[in-house]
């Protein structure tokens, strides 16, 4: 996965970090620019700015569109906004000048002094459409409600990724430029490259594209720490659907608690893996109580959300809730057997290997860990998982054994 001997880093004089995994046999160069600012860094009045800015920069278009330069050589590109960071990425065929091409295109994408109002207006419409589609997708609606309910509207993680409607509608080019000037500074960004490229080549390309940017102060703010376990709440939403979707949401560990992150990952596998998951078997075994289930847990800078979602017949909601509570209580009370722990550790490490099989997968992982702290954690993850003991799983299970926050999205009852 990650050979420490091939992953190197450097920094420009202006503070921009360069991380490179040199893979001489690769047929591509994958590049990612990560800005260590996302939705959680917005002030309440600029809610929605991080995502809208990402849209406006990536899809700016017009003459000299950097996306065309990438696609021209058979490359691809995309961008995304998360609670803790924003990223722009591309993969191009390996070859002479490939890294330089990718880095230059990413730099042209994000380094704009001025944004046309017409572009911002156009992308606001696209974002509104995204919001409408999210609202129509019940699993996504479940996710949005879980974040809002568990963290509350005052916590940055409780805000919708696309922004609160009132502040989003007030955003204009000037507001986005303010957000851009504040956060898109070299000492708050990193460029990650994986593939047929050397650190020297990469650093030279990054220096040429970003070297002239001046270092600037980066605002700091501490994320509020939600209690763990969080107080239980319940949100019910009636929808026009045939089956019910529910999520049990909990407060999990932050990136600064790496052993607990790994233990929570192992716990999610113990519960939900289709081949051997305890809850999966109980809900989808014979007799089946649910149609499908899964777990969402993405490590974040602050304490992250663990969400266990289930789709079932409306009449089975209570049976599902009981099963979930009982399985979590059992995990908190009884250590898992050595055989079960060994299988779970293998599955967790294997899943990590699957997601890091390609250069773009490895780029994404290195950039993710760099955005949350330090890219070196990417190499540590499998070792931390292998070191897990049964007691580690029992310890984190205790956080999740109480009554969770329930989000229930179910068919509207007649007469309501």
């Amino acid at each position, binding site marked *: 996965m990650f050979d420490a001997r091939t992953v190197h880093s450097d920094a420009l004089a202006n503070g921009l970090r360069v991380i490179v995994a040199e893979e001489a046999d690769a047929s591509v160069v994958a590049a990612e620019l990560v800005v260590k600012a996302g939705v959680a860094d917005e002030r309440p009045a600029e809610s929605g700015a991080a995502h809208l800015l990402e849209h406006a920069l990536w899809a700016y278009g017009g003459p000299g569109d950097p996306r065309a330069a990438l696609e021209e050589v058979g490359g691809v590109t995309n961008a995304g906004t998360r609670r803790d960071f924003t990223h722009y990425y591309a993969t191009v065929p390996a070859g002479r000048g490939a890294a330089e091409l990718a880095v230059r295109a990413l730099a042209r994408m994000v380094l704009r002094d001025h944004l046309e109002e017409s572009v911002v207006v156009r992308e606001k419409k*696209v974002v509104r459409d995204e919001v409408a589609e999210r609202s129509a997708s019940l699993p996504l609606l479940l996710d949005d409600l879980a974040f809002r309910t568990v963290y509350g509207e005052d916590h940055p993680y409780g805000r919708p990724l696309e922004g609160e409607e009132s502040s989003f509608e007030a955003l204009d080019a000037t507001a986005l430029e303010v957000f851009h000037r504040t956060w898109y500074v070299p000492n708050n960004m990193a460029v990650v490259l994986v593939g047929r490229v050397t650190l020297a080549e990469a650093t030279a390309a990054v220096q040429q594209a970003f070297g002239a940017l001046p270092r600037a102060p980066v605002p700091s703010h501490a994320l509020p720490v939600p209690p763990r376990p969080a107080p239980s709440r319940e949100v019910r939403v009636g929808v026009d659907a045939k089956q019910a979707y529910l999520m049990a949401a909990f407060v999990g560990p932050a990136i600064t608690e790496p052993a607990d992150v790994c233990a929570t990952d192992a716990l999610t596998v113990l519960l939900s893996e289709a081949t051997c998951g305890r809850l999966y078997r109980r809900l989808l075994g014979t007799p089946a109580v649910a149609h499908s289930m899964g777990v969402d847990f993405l490590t974040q800078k602050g304490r992250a959300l663990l969400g266990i979602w289930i789709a079932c017949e409306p009449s089975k909601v209570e049976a599902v809730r009981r099963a979930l509570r009982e399985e979590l209580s059992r995990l908190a009370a009884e250590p898992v057997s050595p055989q079960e722990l060994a299988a779970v550790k293998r599955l967790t490490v294997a899943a990590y290997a699957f997601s890091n099989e390609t250069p773009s997968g490895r780029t994404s992982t290195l950039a993710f860990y760099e955005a949350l702290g330090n890219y070196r954690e990417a190499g540590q993850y499998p070792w931390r998982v292998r070191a897990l003991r049964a007691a580690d799983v029992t310890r984190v299970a205790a956080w999740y054994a109480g009554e969770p926050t329930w989000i229930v999205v179910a068919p509207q009852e007649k007469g309501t």
Partner: protein
Amino acid sequence: MRRALASVILLLSCVSPSWGTSREVLPNGLRVLLVPSASTEVMAATMLLAIPVSADPPDKLGLRYLTHRLLLRGTTRETGEAMGERLAAVGGTVSVNCALDYLEITVRAPSDGLEVALDLLAQAVQSPAFLPEEVEREKTRAIAAARAARDDPFQCTYQALREELYGKEAYGRWALGEPECLRRLTREDVAAFYRRHYRPEAAVLAIAGGIEAVSAGGAVRLRFGAWRGPAERRATPARATGEPLASSQITARERPTARLHLMLGFPAPAVATQGYYAMQVIDSLLGGGSTARLPKALREQAGLAYEVSSFYPTLAGDSHFAIYAVVDEDALREAKQAILAQLTRLREEPVSAEELAHAKRYLLGVYALSRQESRRQAYSAAWHELLGCPPDFAALYQEKLNAVTAEEVQDTARTLIHHFILALTAPSV
């Protein structure tokens, strides 16, 4: 957990010629492809079975889907749970898929889990138990999946388009079947379907990733060499055909969606036939990447579509080309006109040398780089084999694509782009 943050299609400007693939046909007719790679520590084994959607009897739509799901629910040797635990112990996962032309079962594992992965695959396809309680349980889940597909606006719109293009048979059917038919199926139906259709000569097994070819070949022969299908030889299934459209039509479905989903499509050539490569270029010109003609015109310039793309699926039978867009309900007319304007432009105006070269490079990049993962390599090798493509299809594809001229693109557009089906899914129709 560190999860994939976004799906990225990888690209390469030159197509690598099938990664040193080795091919063997076992005496029982099973075709085996091995695609070793030194640069990965995981492997994937994919079996595709040439059992198309048309194999379902008309009153048992979904039988093939239910039968295939049940392969993982226990064999004559062990229960489904025991199979799952054995695979989990080596860090492996397994999935099944039901496409229009084939049934798929794929096992992924760390490379040292190869033997267990093959063991599971061999048992699943050769000795499924079809226990009555498992049949009932999987029926419930199959019905839920078939219903969920109907609630998905893209699937719903695509189905409407295919029904108009192919009628109610073959590609005009839902791949997962009909909930009402699924409800009536019995264990006897499943067992009879299995006996009739699951046979080694209808299957391709491809293994890719961190494997050693000689030992992997031996492991396959050991586990699949004794597989025997029924003595009765089955005729090769008829390939779906799409008739040229005599007129343009509109078909609409009502679903509680936030926006209007539209799909405009028409028949297009089967893989590797006359016009296939030019049609690939047309697909790339219109929807290949964020700066292709459709996203430029509809999203960037007119601000009409939240999402716009095109696709030209590779199918065993006659294929189709489709443009998909998600728009405001009141923007339907404008979006349709903008799409038709782009199609008319293809017919009337030769593509420039620069844009043609761009479109080809994009296609070749997508072709090669989307096959970087071992599971994609295994799938791709198996699918090309099932389609009857030559072993060096990757090189052929590159050669034929590079040979496409601007005149061919325009001729193909003039030949194929006349009438169309416009399929809509909207909150109210």
